[in-house]
């Protein structure tokens, strides 16, 4: 009698797969799943104690308190809208870059890709701080506008606003969003374009009927890759958002770093995580990627 499963352990391909997957699985378990479980658990603890892993009587009081924090729901909604705008615009702007790299850059694609990634050679903080130098009252843009006599007084609205946060985040995310789109475009068989051309498809029709549908998985990946982390963003609003550009992540940060209330901060984080997942699931159901792909 052959035991069930014995085939799995002797299959060399499966063993290779398991061996390759093991490090990533362990890393994800240790650094993603475990912290998430800890955070969810913490949100049900009555209070912060020295025994974070010890037994406790679960309570929902932090969720009640989180729900009663004045304006928090509206701020979460605002953050979601900001993340949506950032994700849409960053993905839209990343697409032509990826298209150029995939189909037009030729042998210099590698060089251009490196240039695209050059900003990552400096720290995130430096790149965001550079926007302060650009947009400040005494910044580059205002100096030029005032110096050339176009305006008399600096435009104070350039910095410390929601628009500033959105613009900065779009800038930050464009290179990231380019990569998944590029990966998908790079796999498209260019002979399909030739075939479309043979069938008298105009360049625009080739793009609309061939390239775009085939690149939708990359677009979806780019959108989600930007949208999900942007909802919880707190560093960028902290640096360039000012009092008017606050996001939900800043409230969470306050409860972790300026208060001794990690359970409430955890409850707010879990709420944000839940809302994000719901939005993504609902979005995928509405958009129906499979339908878009013609499957």
């Amino acid at each position, binding site marked *: 009698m052959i035991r069930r499963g014995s085939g799995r352990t002797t299959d060399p391909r499966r063993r290779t797969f398991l061996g390759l997957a093991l490090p990533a699985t362990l890393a994800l378990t240790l650094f993603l799943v475990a912290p998430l479980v800890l955070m969810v658990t913490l949100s049900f603890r009555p209070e*912060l*104690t*020295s*025994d*974070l892993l010890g037994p406790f009587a679960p309570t929902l009081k932090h969720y009640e308190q989180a729900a009663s*924090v*004045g*304006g*928090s729901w*509206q*701020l979460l909604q*605002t953050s979601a809208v900001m993340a949506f705008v950032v994700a849409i615009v960053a993905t839209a702007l990343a697409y032509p870059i990826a298209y150029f790299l995939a189909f037009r850059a030729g042998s210099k694609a590698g060089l251009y890709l490196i240039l695209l990634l050059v900003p990552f050679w400096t720290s995130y903080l430096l790149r965001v701080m550079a926007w302060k130098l650009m947009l*400040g*009252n*005494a910044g580059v843009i205002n100096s030029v506008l005032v110096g050339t006599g176009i305006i008399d007084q600096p435009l*104070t609205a350039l*910095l*410390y606003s929601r628009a500033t946060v959105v613009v900065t985040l779009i800038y930050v995310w464009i290179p990231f969003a380019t990569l998944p789109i590029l990966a998908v475009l790079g796999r498209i068989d260019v002979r399909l374009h030739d075939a479309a051309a043979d069938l008298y498809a105009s360049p625009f029709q080739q793009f609309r009927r061939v390239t775009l549908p085939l690149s939708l998985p990359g677009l979806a990946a780019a959108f989600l890759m930007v949208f999900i982390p942007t909802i919880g963003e707190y560093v960028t609003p*902290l640096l360039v*958002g*000012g*009092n*008017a*550009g*606050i996001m939900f992540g*800043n*409230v969470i940060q*306050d*409860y*972790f*770093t*300026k*208060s*001794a*209330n*990690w359970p409430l901060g955890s409850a707010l984080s879990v709420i944000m995580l839940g809302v994000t997942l719901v939005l993504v699931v609902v979005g995928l159901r509405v958009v129906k990627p499979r339908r878009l792909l013609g499957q």
Partner: protein
Amino acid sequence: MFARPLTPPRPAVLLCVLAMVSACSTPAASTAPTAPPALATTTPTTAAVVPTSEPTCSPEGAANPDTTPPDQVKGNLSVFDWSGYEDPGFWTDFNKKYKNVDVKFPAMGASDADIYNGIKTGTNTSDVFHPYTGWLQFYVDEGLAEEIDTTKLKNWDKVPESFKALGRFNCKQYFVPWDWGFSSIVYRTDKIPKIDSWAALLDPAYNGHIMMWDDGPGAVTVSSYIHGWDETAITADQLAQAKTEWTAVLKANPTTWAGEPDLIAGFKTGDVWAGYAWQSAYATLLPDLPMAYADPKEGRNSWVGVYGIRKGSPNYDLALRFLDEKLGAATGEYLVNTWYFGTSNADVIAGITDPTLKKAFSVNDPSILQHTNFTPNLTAAQRDAWIAMWSEAKIAAGS
């Protein structure tokens, strides 16, 4: 309580902090920063600072420092301090004497809550930590700090009694006072004629040019000064009023500051005319801009930083030596002359010869101590409510 990414100040005026020295002319405390005793008879909040059980405490034991030569002391010591305080100048006496001790700063804090949360949850197991007045009671009540054997500190007699009292609870010394200073309003004199009240931070006349500290307890403290509320007994109605007022301020002004460099940059770009500030920001800005540091009619705020030893630290004796050397002369001089913070070492304050500093000591306002408010210890309920108020004000301002 103070996010202090340290910014090198320049020789300039300071420290009205230092003006304290001139105000204290008794031989015993002739040149020491004896702010607390002066305040003890003049401000209601001092009662919350100086333990009421103080008179019944028995005298401290005779000094009995460990006589082991420093070069024979070996080991490892970890310190949980604020970002920037790992600078060897801040522990130069220890660094020079204890060549065989490896001092580490495994993680840096950015707020009082950071330090407290790390020690409380055990996510930071450093031997020594650095909280500020306002948050000390928590460590004592929750058993997070070891009692300090002050007989082992050879520099302990250099610390004025009033400072010692800040770290003493139930007649037990839990903390060694180290740095101190003022909070008030720093402002540009070419933009604002004179500020004589904390209410200037709420004044719509300066809309767009005020930069408040991003801190709930700090905001409530200012509100209590403005309205004459008892800071230790803020009511729900008062907190609601504070929220309304601070929401208006946050809406009317572009940003707040979390670290002193943000405040200084705001002034230097010309965007900020007035802001909540420590004296170090004033000293830093003075050489470049026409600045003043307000003496509000309600009184300035003053704060003291202390060092404690974590409960259960395996390096207690070494930590005591570290705290002792923290009170050393070279360390104190570095703190005062390089960073314009006050030190609890009275000899250092007495030995200052810089004319600018001496001027700052003696002439500005000898009565400064008569109207300065020391930060009282918070209760957990106050801490949570005040931080929640500030958070909601920020949300409302951004909505």
